[in-house]
């Protein structure tokens, strides 16, 4: 398995001299299974444009482009590059597109179609020349054929959002973005007039159980790509409920669940290269060991599992 990071940012592309090393494009990963020549793309943030260009240059001369695209969710930063993914306009291209339905039970296709309207983009979805097959996912386990098995898990984000766990010939690649640790939302202060002991207790239990479920989902992954938009201090300071995790939490959680390589991902657009270097020294370096590697995702790099 080879994993290439085409976009590593959250929220919005942020090109500029201060983000040139870690990259300014939004979320897009490519997982390539060499043994079976199969390509999986996760999310179509602005980074997918460059991947499309590469496929046009290298893949198309050898035959029609085929790929499976998995959307974690349909927030803007994860879909904005899709209309600029050139293979989608090429006759013969075959795409299987997977992802969650929205809260309103709107299909993935309907949710994505919104951006293929004249008011946002000059080409309508009906006019695309490629063959696109949409598959709605819930929390489930599916056999993708050729020995590739996928498990999905709902994450904690303001929109229905899926984490993906691909297992292929004994290796495991897993994503957990965008997500925030579950917490007890119920009043926990016995002095507060709204306090209800049973509710508070159940709230604690549910939050713990749901966090444990996510830990089981990531357990034993050879590589885990995790939403770590914030530091713990930032998250606790006015960003609760936004649906993102802290670097510290991801490191602790991956560490105790025998993940081999944790990749910190979905960098805040305001985070500069210098700040990421500093955070690497302060948070990643002390956590590294022979069994556990932690690094920040860098746009344009490829990692081997």
């Amino acid at each position, binding site marked *: 398995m080879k994993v290439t990071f085409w976009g590593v940012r959250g929220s919005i592309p942020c090109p500029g001299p201060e983000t040139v090393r870690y990259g300014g494009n939004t979320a897009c990963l490519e997982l390539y299974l060499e043994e079976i020549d199969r390509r999986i793309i996760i999310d179509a943030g602005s980074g997918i444009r460059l991947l499309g260009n590469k496929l046009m240059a290298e893949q198309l001369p050898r035959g029609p482009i085929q790929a499976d695209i998995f959307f974690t969710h349909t927030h803007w930063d994860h879909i904005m590059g899709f209309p600029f993914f050139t293979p989608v306009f090429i006759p013969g291209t075959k795409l299987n597109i997977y992802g969650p339905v929205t809260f309103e*039970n709107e299909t993935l296709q309907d949710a994505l179609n919104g951006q293929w309207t004249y008011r946002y983009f000059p080409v309508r979805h009906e006019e695309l020349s490629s063959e696109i097959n949409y598959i709605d996912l819930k929390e*489930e386990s599916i056999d993708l054929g050729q020995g590739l098995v996928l498990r999905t898990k709902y994450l904690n984000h303001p929109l229905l959002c899926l984490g993906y766990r691909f297992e292929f010939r004994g290796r495991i690649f897993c994503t957990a973005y965008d997500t925030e640790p579950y917490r007890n939302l119920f009043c926990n202060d016995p002095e507060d007039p*709204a306090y209800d002991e049973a509710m508070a207790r159940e709230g604690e239990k*549910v939050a713990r159980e749901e966090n444990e479920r996510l830990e089981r989902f990531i357990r034993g992954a050879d590589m885990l790509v995790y939403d770590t938009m914030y530091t713990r201090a930032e998250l606790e300071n006015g960003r609760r409920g936004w649906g993102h995790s802290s670097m510290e939490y991801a490191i602790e959680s991956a560490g105790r669940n025998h993940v081999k390589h944790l990749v910190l991902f979905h960098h805040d657009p305001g985070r500069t290269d210098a700040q990421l270097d500093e955070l690497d020294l302060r948070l990643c370096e002390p956590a590294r060991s022979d069994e556990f590697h932690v690094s920040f995702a860098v746009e344009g790099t490829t990692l081997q599992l």
Partner: protein
Amino acid sequence: MAESPEILTGASKNRAGFAMDTERRIKTIKRFIERMPSLPTSVTKVLEICNRPDTSPNDLNRVISLDPVLTGQVMKLINSAYYALPNRITSLTRAIIMLGINTVKNLALATSVLSTFRDRIACRRMTMDDFWAHSLGVGVIAKTLAQITGVTAAEQETYFVAGLLHDLGKIPLANKFPGEYDQVVETVGSNGASLVECEQKVFGVDHLHVGGMIAGKWRLNHDMQAAITGHCLECGDVSDHTVAIMVALADYLAVRFDIGAAGNREIEDKVLIAALGRISIRPDKLEGLRSKVEQEIERARDFLKIAGRED
């Protein structure tokens, strides 16, 4: 419309026959209201709690839990919409933590309102969808007007709920006498008659009065009752209750914006401007209101798609 005079004058009936008809109709309506589901938790309570922007998880859990039917519906919706695995979410507490307070709150809101309104209207000229869109539009506009006049965020919800429920009285009329109600809707506007006048001619009673009967049965609070029974600016005895005036105004604006339909006719600019003056709103303050209202309605419609499903 050509056929209106007969309805308006009752020319084909003698007075005694008309009175008997009226009595029978009112009896039918009363029976209908008696059989309307009485809500174990007052519908306004659910609506008020759910509509507050700062609803606390504790309040939300409490207000939904008080109503076992509503709890069941919310759990059913959550499980079918979200999980391939059946009954994965087994408690409201878990649902609130996993799906977030807004998701659960919106489901509860849609479910509680819809269970009241569902399948109760079968008129050609005022379909359930039209009626629902109109009610929702009036709710959203009333709330926005309240905002403009500086009503606090917590109190704005009263205006929303009052707007949503203001036409409750039309449900029994349109449900029991769909043919007659179609005629009423057709007639409104000809001969200068208002909806309320047409209803009185045909049924001997109007939707304000019938709405008052339902509000009484449901023990809705004073503001709701005032809005339901007093939202007619054209009627002689104009309410001086602020919520009622605001809802009445929202009612006319919804017609003007062409949002849904509930039989009302459009009113003249000078009546509208005079009414705005009564609650100290300058007409230019209404700019942009229409698109805001349309967005809110679209959002609410999405929830209804789920809540409206039988399975």
